[in-house]
Every structure is written in C-alpha cells, then in structure tokens.
C-alpha cells in the first residue's frame, strides 16, 4: 500500500465506525546509523518503520491509539481502540481537530541525496571523525559517537478535510569523549551537528573540536567559590536556559497554571538585549516544516522582544481554549497525542565576538557544558559545570573541576549582559554564547 492508501483507509474506517471526527497521522522513516564506541566502529544499524496514530472524537470525548502493524485488520483494531478509549473518557468540550488552512512547501528541508546515502558513506564519515580526534592524539577517547541519516515522510488527514504530506531529511551527528593522561581524566565533552543537507556534514571539523575540548579540559583544578559572570556555550545555554523558557511559554503549561510566566504576557521577563523568535518556515532549518502534528502551518513568532514576553506557543487545543489562533506548534509523531514544542527556536545574536565578550570579563566562568537539574516550575537550578574555564581579567583561562553553579533561571534572564555574534544549532535551537552576571559559583 502507498502512504496515501494507508492513511486514507484509516480515515474511512474511523468515519464508518461511528466517530464524529477522525485524524490520522502517518509516519514512515528510514534510518541508517553508524556508531563508534571505545574508539572503534560498533554496530551499523538499519531501521525501516511505518506507523499511524489515530485520534477520534465522539460525543465531545477523545481517544487515541497507534500501531505500526499496518494490515487492514490491525488498522481496524487501532481505530476501534481509539473509539473505545473515547467512550470511556471524560468529556472535554475544548477537544477538537482543526480545519484546513493554506500550507506552503518549505525549501531546503529535503535533500534528495539522502536517498543514496548508504551505511558505507556513514562509515566513511565516522572514520574521518576518528582520524581528526583520536587519530591525532591518543590521549583522546571517543566514548560514543553516532552518525545518522534519516528520511522522514509525514502525512496527515482528518475528517475536516486536511490532507498533507511532506518529506524531510536529517543528518545528525553526536559525539561524547574525554581525554586521559595518567590519572588525570577530563570531563565528558560533547560535540553535535544536525543538518537537512548531506553536504553540510563535516565530521572532520567535529573531530577537531572534540579533541580540542577534551585536551583543553586536562589538568583541571579546583577553585574557591565566588560570585561573578558566567558565559554559557550554546550547548549549555540550551540545557540550562532555553529548555525552561520553552516550558514557560508552552500554552498548555500556562493554562495548567504551572508556567512561571503565566501572568507575565506583555511584561518584562529578561534583560533588554535578550530576544527570541520561533520560525518553522525558514528554508533549510532543521525544525522547519510545512505543517505541524495537526496539519497547521507554523506561524513565525517573536517570542521575547527586547526582554518583553510577546507570545505563547499553541496547538489547536490550547488555542481553542484561549480563544486564540493556533500557532502551528503541535509536536510529536504517530505514537503519541499532539503536544507543544518549538519549531526553530532562535535566540538573537549580539554584535561582539565570543573572544571580545570573554575579554570584558573581570572574574567569571566559561561553561561549555552544564550537567544538572533546572526545575522549570520554580526556575531554581544547581548543577555541575563540565568543561569549565575560570577567567580572570579577560585573559587568564584555566580549566576547572568540581565547580557548581546555582541560582534561578527566570531571575538570571534579567541579568543577561552579553550575547556573542557566533551562533550554533543544537537540535532545533539556535543560540549564541550567553553571558550572565551575578551567578553564585561554588567551588571547594
């Protein structure tokens, strides 16, 4: 059966089985992955997957079921499961599925070359990476590295008339490594690249960066605690700052009363230099897509403008509840109900280069990786700095270990004092280095 046959059949079965409304999300994925562990090639993997997620509405009640067995029999059973769940669930008048709206194709998210990528190609990418990291310096250990190629087909059809299909490619490489010199072991350091274009993938450069990070972390010393500036790398910034922001602007969390910003719409949530946009229509970006998990086109949004909170991220449910227009941020795949997530979440860069930013720091810490908790509800965080560098008078930089940072994210956003001109793409986030003032740093 073709993709279309499958999801249209599921739609028909749903309508016939007595559902008031039916939505079918279809996913087909072909992925290839080559993994390196302990400095050596491990299991090459191939995976062919296809599955459907069926959402039904009956008498104002909703049910969901999914299956990756796509025989007619199994599709029928899946639709019936969704209806059974709906019948046994409490009524929720805000439940619904959207009507069709204009959709526009997005350039640069599907690379036809992806179809020809083989495991052998990925093995070559992996060996380039190894040559550039451990190949040059055997103190470096590549703990785990993954080189992955994916072709994703998404489709959606619902009983209100939405019909859409899209193809995407995704090439994603990640690596974790450390350096060891006698008894001296560095922190785990991380490298990451994701792109929809095969030719953008430069695993040799990744290998160089991983090597430099790991070696630079050798000979780390303990330092006494102080209060000062902290510069977060894009990797640390996503983990520490951006995940909580995404939590705070998720309309579902706002409506559930757990977003710390639920009363802050239009108000100041960050310092004047801090702006964030979300745009799922950008050509060539990894989070771009013609339609979201419910078939709605992503709407470009200014989320935070010069420190002021401008918009929430909505799916159809939260938008209906708030009496607003859905923003095209329904996230997820065929195996679960639509949630809410960012498309391309972009922190506006600054004018200074990272180097200039660091020069202006009197006493502070460069954090390349943050490991620890950040509670998105209260904003409190406290965790260990990995691959940290102590900076004094803008010049002296020494690797440090066993240093912890703590504070409150939502308060710290008012203390953003610098943004680098360089940005980096991590998952579907793009962010510069972010400098924060007045962070409490615990040493020992």
């Amino acid at each position: 059966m073709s993709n279309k046959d499958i999801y249209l059949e599921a739609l028909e079965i749903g309508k016939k089985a007595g559902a008031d409304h039916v939505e079918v999300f279809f996913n087909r994925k072909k992925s290839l992955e080559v993994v390196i562990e302990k400095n050596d090639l491990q299991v090459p993997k191939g995976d062919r997957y296809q599955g459907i997620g069926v959402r039904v509405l009956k008498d104002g009640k909703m049910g969901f079921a999914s299956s990756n067995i796509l025989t007619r029999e199994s599709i029928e059973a899946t639709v019936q499961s969704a209806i059974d769940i709906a019948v046994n669930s409490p009524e929720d008048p805000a439940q619904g599925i959207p009507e069709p709206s204009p959709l526009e194709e997005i350039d640069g998210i599907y690379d036809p070359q992806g179809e020809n990528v083989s495991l052998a190609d990925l093995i070559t990418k992996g060996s380039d990476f190894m040559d550039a990291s451990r190949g040059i310096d055997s103190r470096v250990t590549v703990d785990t590295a993954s080189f992955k190629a994916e072709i994703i087909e998404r489709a959606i059809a619902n009983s209100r008339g939405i019909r859409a299909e899209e193809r995407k490619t995704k090439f994603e490489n990640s690596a974790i490594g450390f350096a060891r010199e006698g008894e001296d072991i560095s922190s785990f350091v991380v490298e990451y690249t994701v792109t929809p274009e095969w030719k953008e993938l430069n695993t040799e450069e990744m290998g160089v960066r991983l090597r430099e990070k790991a070696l630079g972390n050798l000979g780390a010393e303990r330092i006494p605690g102080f209060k000062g500036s902290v510069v977060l790398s894009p990797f640390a910034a996503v983990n520490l700052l951006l995940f909580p922001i995404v939590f705070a602007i998720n309309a579902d969390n706002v409506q559930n009363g757990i977003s710390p910003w639920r009363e802050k719409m239009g108000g100041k949530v960050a310092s004047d230099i801090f702006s964030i946009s979300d745009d799922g229509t950008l050509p060539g970006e990894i989070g771009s897509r013609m339609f979201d998990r419910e078939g709605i086109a992503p709407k470009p949004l200014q989320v935070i403008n010069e420190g002021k909170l401008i918009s929430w991220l909505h799916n159809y449910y939260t938008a209906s509840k708030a009496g607003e227009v859905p923003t095209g941020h329904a996230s997820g795949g065929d195996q679960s109900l639509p949630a809410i997530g960012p498309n391309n979440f972009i922190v506006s860069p600054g004018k200074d280069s990272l180097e200039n930013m660091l020069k202006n720091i009197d006493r502070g810490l460069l954090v390349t990786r943050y490991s620890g908790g950040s509670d998105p509800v209260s904003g409190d965080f406290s965790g260990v700095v990995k691959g940290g560098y102590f900076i004094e008078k803008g010049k002296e930089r020494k690797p440090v270990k066993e240093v912890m940072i703590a504070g409150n994210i939502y308060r710290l956003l008012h203390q953003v004092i610098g943004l680098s001109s360089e940005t980096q793409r991590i998952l579907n986030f793009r962010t510069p280095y972010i400098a924060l003032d007045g962070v409490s740093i615990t040493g020992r």
Partner: protein
Amino acid sequence: MIKTLKEIVHSQNEHLEIRDHKRFSTVIQFKNGVLKKGERKTLAGAGIRALVDGCWGFVATSETDEENLRRSAGEAIKAAREASQLKKEKIKGLGTGEVGQGTFNLYQKKADEPEFGEKVNALQKAEAKIRDAGNDIIGSMVNYHVFQDSKVIVSSSGAEAEINDQKSEIAIVAFGASGEKQEMGMVSHGITGGWSDLFSRNHLDEMVEKAVEIVRTKLKAGYAPGGNYTVILDPQLVGVLAHEAIGHTVEADFVLSGSVVADKIGEKVASDLITLVDDGTQEGAGKVLVDDEGTVNKPTVIIENGVLKNYLHSRETAHMFSTEARGNARAFTYRDEPLIRMTNTFIQPGKDRLEDMIKGIEDGFLLVGMDQGGQADATGEFMFGVQEGYRIKNGEIKEPVKGINISGQAFEVLKSADALSQEFNMDLGSGYCGKKQPAKADAGGPYLRCKVMIGGQQGKGEQNE
C-alpha cells in the same frame, strides 16, 4: 513464530539473533482535571543482529512475515560485513552463559486487572484529590503507564525463549504556590506486574497525600548552605548512587573505554560495609529473567565487603574478560540492539538503626528521594538532585531545606560510609535508565551515612534582589 525464526537462524552460517517483540502499552494522564492522554499503542517488529567477520550488523523491521525476515537477516549480514572492513578490534568470539530455552513469565496474569474505563475513573479521582487538598495547590498531574511485552528470541548460541513481561508505573505530581514561590512534589513507583501490584506497597490515595505533603514542606523550606557534610541518604538516593554513579562505571563497555574502575577488580573500592549486587531475578521494575541476547539472568556481586568483584557483561564483553554472561544485555524495543544494562541494583542492608545513625551526626542532613536531574561520569563523579532535605543538628532532625544537589566521587562517598540501616527498600520510582535507549531499571538499598558535597544556593539571600 519460533519455528520460522529457528529455520532462518539455522539456515545461516553466520551468527544470527532474531528477536520478535510485540509491545502493547496504555498511557493515562490527567492534568488539572483534564484527561491529557488516553492512549493505547502497539509497537511490534523484529530486531535482527548478525556477527560477521568480527563485526555486528543490526536491522530492524516492522514487517515480520518470513520473506521480510529473511531479507532483513541478509541486510544485517551485509551491514556487518561492510563494517568489518574498517573495524579495528574484531570481536573474537562470544562468551558463554546459560541460554534461555522455554517459556519465561515475569509476572502472574491476574484476573483483577481493571478495564481501561475503571483505571481512568480511579486516576481521575486521585488527580482531583490533589487539587482538593487546598488553595496552596495550584496544579496536579497523574501519569500512568503500563506495557506488556511478548518476545521470542532465537539465536545461533542456542537460545529459544518465549518471554512474557509486564511493567507498570505511576507518577503523581502536586504543584504548589505560596506568594511568589512555586514548588513541585512528586511520588512515583514502578514494578514488574499489573495494577494491583503497583499499589500493593502504597495505596493511590497515600501517594497523593505524600505528594501534597512534599510540596508543602518545600514551600516552607529555606535553602541549604553549600559545603561538605555528613548526611544520611535514604534508600532511593542510595539506589540512585548504586545505579547511576557506581553501576554505570562497572558496565564492561564503560570499563573498556577507561572508566574509573578499569583494572580495579580485587581492589578495595568502598568501605567494608558495602556489598553491591545487580540481580534481575529479584522483584522490582528491573526484573529480567532472560536478556535480549537470550541469556538467563543470574545475580552479579559487583562489590563484596568493599572489594570490587565483577563487572556487568554482554556475551561480547564476557568473552573479552574470560567470564560468562549473566543476562545483562538488554534492548528496549525491537528497534534497539542489546546493550549492557543493569537490572535491579542495590546495596545490601546493614545492622544499624536509623535513629542511632541520626544521633551520630552533629551537623548534617537527612536526604530523602531524588529530584529531577542527575548525572554521573565514567570517573564516578556524580551530581543528583534531592527532593527532600532535613537539617540534622546535634543528633536531632530540624527544619526542612530545599534546592539541594549532592555531588562527589561515588567511590569516595562509599569509602566514607560508616553506617547502614537494617531497613531496606528498592524503589527507583517510575523512571527509566537512559543509555542511548531507555531501560526499566530498579535500585535501592538501606539508609546510608556518608560524606557528600552539598551544592546549596550559597548567598541566596543576597542574590534575591
């Protein structure tokens, strides 16, 4: 199914493992009075792994008719052959270990498993009860998840096993507010078995009360001052330490990449009081009778009276270390290849009484339950969030404190252990262990007195404008 798989496996000269795995799962989630998730999912397919010229190849497919299985087996063999041309350290053989043959049931099917609608009702009531607790409770969530696995594993090593498993878990969250402050309290539990097993230790209502109590305590609590302290870790935190900070460093794949315990077998790595075991045959969320390479699980003593005894193995690493595999190679779904994983990991209880342990602390903390966030490195260095903390002064429990993170080097912490309680509990909550793929794991131990670094929010008072 088993007949077809045997035919395919035995028709190949190469080493082949086929795992047919069907999973049916149900998710029910209530948030603030609304059913956010009522989901039933089927995830089924076969994972095929081949070992050719010293290299693995793995192919997963959701189509499991004989023709497709044969084709996928061929692809796995081809992938392995291609990769072997570049692999430096070839796999020289697979270790021995008892192979699973026959049927393995990890749980008793019970007639009292409620229907979907009944579960929805019970969880809806529980969730409403959180919000009814008072005006200070501003949000609530109940999340329930159960999955049933039926697997058939056939390998060239001789495994011919049919496995039936069921894991259930629940998490209850209360969000509270007081003025500008917001906090979260969570109670969770996971087991091997069904609905009645899930609530056999604590009734659903008791879990709700506990979650509300935790959030209220946190709202009243101040921050702990950072520094080095003598603390008592509760069984859950001991479990987190045993699993996260110690357990991962003894997984043979981590050992081979130079973890802190490489070459330390036979050495003293912890206080004499510490005996640490991984045992899939125990009741717990990490129960495993036969692993995903088809090996029968047997208990592994990792540390005995402070001395490092064994690592955890797959068949591949067992061969490298000239030992036998004991059932620690696990895969989460058919799409995952087996990796070395823990099962139920715990520190054996001691002889002390908790109250005496508290009396012995002049200035320290009693720390209870894990909070979000936690991480450990191959160096044994760790950082975990703690849900509840109580100051101990002159042998008495004093005021609660919040926002605590503990950190240190796990083996140093275990060397500092000077008292272990008789009381024992295994309950890692409802979480999953993450190592490229999730795995249900459990962990626990007694109350343990030791020294750790507390990363409190130093100078928090000044930092608040």
